[in-house]
């Protein structure tokens, strides 16, 4: 199994694996789809330019699930990645875990990089929305997707993050430099109080509950107060995000129509057949489902019932987080229901990624930062990455 879809040698510096959602001008970018097989971008993503400028070497393009909305990369047109024990794994997580890459850059639209890091005992940072440029990433769900950093340890992840954080004029949602600077600050900030998300934790498997318990112990041992809170409202994030993500995805991938670049069917006589057959032949099943669902949520008759409601839930959730972070420095929660998944799981429930994002959607839909360490997830208020990373340090090494 090839973990890299394209590889690059000879550059000096610590090696970075790029999820194949990040555009590069010297290597193809496929987004895990047949639609973009051999697609060559005319430019590098902003994160690639920043990494190179900071002396990192780009090792290659890691295989990803189609448009990175699946559970663990299983929907890639170029094949799923499985560990020796048959568990699913993303290519970039495996590259980092094996030491073939020092860190990986991903695009978190549906929690995949965070989920993969949690299952593999890696560290993953999904920074505050707007602090890392999305210029040059394959757009999926622009209102929530964020560039992520995955590494074996907190300090490597932090160093790579510092290299890519910053304002970019080419991204209209990019925050001003003074806000980005808060994320880049060198000093870690100790937390005093951490909340545990009760219902999310209860919904997870025993093994995951144990990881949460271990994390609580580690925090308490460091003199941090830990309190369980009612998080039932956070459970609504999943459905709301599924609506927003699918709608935006449907719109964003509509440019892949077989006209300008990418896959074009041989089987057409009219423009409508060109569109329909190219997309039918080149897109996988999960993506097609997402497109149809997204299209429904935006239709005239559903917009107020679905898309608009999704936007309202986003606002309510942001207010809920504001309230939580008035009293707590972070919220501790699982990143997945189970500690391992196999292909059988994804065959049994084809839309498992639309269920398992129960744990990742709260941070995605609100744009707050999330850090994975010790197999668990920590959420904080905007720009509190250094608080989350300080907590993550206390979990390092656990959960492998």
């Amino acid at each position, binding site marked *: 199994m090839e973990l890299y879809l394209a590889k690059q040698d000879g550059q000096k510096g610590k090696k970075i694996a790029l999820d194949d959602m990040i555009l590069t001008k010297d290597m193809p970018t496929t987004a895990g789809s047949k639609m973009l097989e051999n697609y060559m971008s*005319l430019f590098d993503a902003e994160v690639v330019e920043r990494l190179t400028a900071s002396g990192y070497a780009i090792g290659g393009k890691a295989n990803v699930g189609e448009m990175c909305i699946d559970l663990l990369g299983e929907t890639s047109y170029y094949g799923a990645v499985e560990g020796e024990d048959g568990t699913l794994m993303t290519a970039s997580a495996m590259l980092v875990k094996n030491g073939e890459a020092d860190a990986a850059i991903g695009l978190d639209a549906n929690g995949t990089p965070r989920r993969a890091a949690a299952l593999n005992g890696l560290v993953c940072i999904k920074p505050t929305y707007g602090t890392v440029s999305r210029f040059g990433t394959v*757009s999926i769900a622009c209102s929530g997707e964020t560039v992520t950093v995955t590494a074996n340890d907190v300090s490597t992840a932090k160093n790579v993050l510092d290299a890519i954080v910053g304002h970019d004029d080419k991204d209209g949602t990019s925050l001003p430099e003074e806000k980005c600077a808060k994320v880049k600050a060198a000093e870690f900030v100790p937390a005093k109080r951490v909340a545990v998300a009760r219902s999310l934790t209860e919904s997870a498997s025993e093994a995951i509950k144990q990881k949460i318990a271990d994390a609580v112990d580690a925090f308490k041992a460091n003199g941090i107060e830990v309190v369980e809170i009612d998080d039932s409202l956070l459970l609504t994030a999943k459905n709301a995000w599924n609506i927003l993500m699918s709608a935006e995805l449907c719109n964003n991938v509509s440019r892949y129509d077989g006209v*300008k670049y990418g896959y074009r069917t041989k089987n057409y006589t009219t423009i409508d057949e060109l569109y329909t057959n190219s997309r039918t032949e080149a897109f996988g099943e999960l993506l097609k489902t997402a497109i149809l669902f997204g299209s429904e949520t935006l239709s005239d008759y559903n917009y107020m019932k679905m898309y608009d409601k999704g936007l309202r839930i986003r606002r309510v959730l942001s207010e809920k987080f504001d309230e939580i972070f008035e009293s707590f420095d972070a919220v501790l929660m699982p990143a997945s229901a189970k500690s391992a998944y196999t292909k059988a799981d994804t065959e049994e429930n084809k839309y498992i990624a639309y269920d398992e994002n129960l744990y990742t959607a709260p941070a995605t839909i609100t744009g707050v930062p999330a850090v994975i360490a010790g197999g668990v997830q920590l959420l904080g208020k905007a720009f509190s990455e250094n608080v989350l990373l300080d907590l993550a340090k206390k979990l390092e090494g656990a959960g492998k």
Partner: protein
Amino acid sequence: MATKYETVIGLEVHIELATESKIFCSCSAKFGGEQNDHVCPACCGMPGMLPVVNKHVVDLGMTAGMMLNCHINRVTTFDKKSYYYPDLPCSYQTTQWFAPVAVNGTVRINTSKGEKDIRIKQIHMEEDAGKLVHDDWTNTTFVDFNRTSVPLIEIVSQPDLSSAEEVVAYLERLRSLLRFAKVSECRMEQGSMRCDVNLSVRPEGSKVLGVRTEMKNMNSISAIERAIEYETARHIDAIENGTEELVQETRRWDDIKGKSFAMRNKETAGDYRYFPDPNVMPVCIDDEWYDGIKATLPEFPEVKREKYINELGLGEYDADLLTESRALCDVFEAAYAESNLAKESANWIISNCMKVLNRKQMTPDMLNIDGKSLGKLIKLVADGKVGNANARKILDEMFENDIDPEKYATENGFIVSNDTGRIQDVINAVVAADQKSVADFKGGKEKALMALFGKCMKELKGNCDPAVLREMLLKTIQ
């Protein structure tokens, strides 16, 4: 008694904004260019590019709103409209659906029936689509993305118009106001002003609207007139004689055939699945921005016209001509401010500047000479320091280069000489060489004096006060 009918018309007018660059990328928005010259990964729909709003587009959207007496939405947002067509590279158009830049305006029109206010529902900003070019030889369709993402505004009127005459008056008024405010050149022949006509017909006095059809593809104001007349007659014929069943649909106007045709249902029907564009943050217009735009608004053309006639003493014809174009007004006002000579300033623009423009095949809107310099030149002429022929040469130079007329006149020997000794020498020489004309003049032929005068003036290279020359010439002969 035969039923009388009234026509109810609402217009959607698309106007391309006069910006240097496109709405979300830095490509040129200029008309023309080789096919696919003005494109980049953003405006041809490649992955990875994100839209960044061109602030000048919002400036012009606000300006248009203010010129049409609209309320400006202080928070205005961009939304995505989805449909598949090969000239739309992203398969969505970024437009304004939920909070357009301007709403609730009015435009006053003047027709044979008097004044009438047409209500404006809204003005929204959006991006243009590209162009399909069909090659019959290879039976292939090509796409030209030069126009994709060129900024547009769409001005949506309420159904307040009731005749072709009113529609023409409305469109001419829009064009005049928006050209005056430098929002757009509004040229229908280049597609920078396009108009869709929503039309229905009902018995006079009826409160119920008839079946509405939308007509597209009219390329001139006269085509719009023809289309409205045809479509009105078609509706009335259908209602009265049942020749066909009227359905709500979009129709394409064929100006050569003089008929409208139903477009394929596919091209028109659709659920556009609008939603807010998450990549474009809401644009917040603060007081400073709002007031700044307000301060740049020009006087309305009719206000200027009145002022030119009543305060500056221009004739109606001159005032009409000048207020056709903002550029002419700007140059006129600057020239007048410098010279304090209103009629001369108007004359110089209407006769001399127009001649140069015509020669260069430029429109009045393209007049870009410095009005202050023109004022200086007019003063030089009025003071008798430069002759008319030489002044026109200086004007020619002003179209090419930024010059100071007095300095240029001095350097080129165009300053009228007051050296009477030199003038007398020239007169003596001319008179000596052309005794026949002298004799003719003395014999009563007035024209002979003109010949002598012309010869002297030529010898003096025009640098002589004509009155002085004439007087000295007469004295010498007599």
